[in-house]
């Protein structure tokens, strides 16, 4: 992943910065959504923030959407605790409505490693979110952790597979990941290749049949001030 710049001056020097990474449709190159990340030394999902800080960051994202890209979809990571918290959808809904954006513009992501620590709780949480058709993505599926079993247990809407895990995987694991993509397609689940940094990786993602992709090759993480100019794809 390339350097992620400080993106939100209001966080101030030395504080975490907010950024948006484009998620692109491989079929036509359109920007479909962005992932909101917080950057300290390295980008992380802002689910790492808790309590009031989480609400603050989410409010910032919602405000940016309202001002600069109404209709845009933004994915963000949540912790397992946040996912299991029954108040999560109402909290997100309230913040979105306060900012004047469509609540379902927010797409939840849960790290696969976290989800696997409590599969039944995660499943229940996802089912609860699905009652109002919130989108849930399983992030960072790990080639070393029986991804097919995870996919069979968790009724997610999309899966993310990091290209780095593809590079590092041995032949068997690579076949597992290929099977994940094929299984996801069979289940009607969207697939996102992440961490795409060069053309060979992009070609591999297209060859493997991923629906969407994100990563440095699609441009550096968008500073909030540039979101308007980039936010012209069909979903934005």
């Amino acid at each position, binding site marked *: 992943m390339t350097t992620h710049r400080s993106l939100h001056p209001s966080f101030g020097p030395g504080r975490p910065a907010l950024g948006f990474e484009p998620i692109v449709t491989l079929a036509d190159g359109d920007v479909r959504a962005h992932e909101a990340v917080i950057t300290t030394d390295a980008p992380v999902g802002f689910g790492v923030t808790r309590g009031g800080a989480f609400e603050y960051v989410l409010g910032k994202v919602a405000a940016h959407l309202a001002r600069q890209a109404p209709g845009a979809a933004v994915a963000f990571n949540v912790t397992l605790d946040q996912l299991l918290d029954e108040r999560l959808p109402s909290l997100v809904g309230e913040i979105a409505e306060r900012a004047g954006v469509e609540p379902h513009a927010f797409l939840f992501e849960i790290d696969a490693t976290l989800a696997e620590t409590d599969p039944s709780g995660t499943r229940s949480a996802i089912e609860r979110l699905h009652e109002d*058709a919130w989108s849930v*993505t399983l992030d960072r599926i790990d080639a070393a952790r029986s991804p097919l079993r995870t996919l069979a247990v968790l009724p*997610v809407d999309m899966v993310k597979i990091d290209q780095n895990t593809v590079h590092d995987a041995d032949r068997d694991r690579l076949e597992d990941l290929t099977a994940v993509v094929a299984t996801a397609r069979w289940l*009607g689940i969207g697939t996102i290749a992440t961490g795409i940094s060069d053309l060979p990786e992009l070609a591999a993602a297209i060859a493997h049949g991923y*629906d969407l992709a994100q990563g440095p090759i699609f441009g550096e993480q968008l500073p909030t001030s540039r979101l308007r100019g980039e936010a*012209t794809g069909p979903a934005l």
Partner: protein
Amino acid sequence: MSDGVSVRPPTDLRAALHRSPLAIALIDLDDMRLLEANAAALRTIGLVPEDPLPGTLDEIFDPETRAASKAALEVLAADAIMAFESRRTLRSADGTPFDAHLWVRSLRSIGLHAALVIVAPYDGVDPVDLESGVPATRLDLGGAVAVGSIDLELRILSCSADIAEILGCDPETVIGETLTARVHPDDVATLLLGVGRAVADEHGAAMHVRARTADDGYAGVRLVVNPIRGTTAARLGFVMTAESAERGGDARIADLERHLWRIALEVETAGVAHGVQRVPDADTVSGIEELSPRQWEIVTRLLRGERVPDIARALFLSQSTVRNQLGAVYRKLGVHSQSELLALLRGRLDAG
């Protein structure tokens, strides 16, 4: 809006308009003003995006042909026709007149009382590449194009001012008259057969007839009649052109029909119509008020013809999540399948 139909332009409507390489404008058919114009359209009339839109269409139409230009739009506004194509003289912001070729299509059939206008300056140079599927400007209709509507008894309900150029008569004088009385007695059978074919096939039918002129002579004209969809009253729109001395009438009509159909294609290509939802009012179907906004969005996408995989992709959901939501919708509305659901909602639209 009336008829149990409401218009909910999606948030990406403007974005789609402004992405198009074609010069496209939307006209509000209620008060005849520009709703929106993309940069290419603004450039055509000598404006830039920062400039305010002209307050009325009178500022755009050349005074000499303003009446005819407005009359054609009024016929469109009355749902008498769905589309027309014509060459008009427009005025730039600095007052300079210029000829433009207009493709005009009502968006009524998708629930919006507005017209989409594609403008191509008629400067003899194709501004866009035909290979890419966007329109050329080298289509010279050569004369006036009268548009109007008739009911199933062939009574003329409305007619644009261009009829004066074709038949020499005031449009007001032909309103209420039947087309059978307007055409030569020997051509009545042709007319009836053509209209019958259009009604039976729900498709446009073209015919060659002689129409009575203001001085009681007859002029050869070509008529294209089209059933009007999306309205409650049964009627047909017609497009009348004078026969061209230079070109065969059949070729003229074929051109006209082809280009009328191409408007629909261009609307789709431009992506402008995509996302405009024609949906029943919430109080017209029992149970609709119980649907969540998310379920309502899925239902309206279904009504627009999107399939479950398309909806899933658009909403970042798995297909099973969408199907589960549809299952909940079925329970709330008391239906058991997608076809029953669509029949129920479309039934309400048609009844409206």
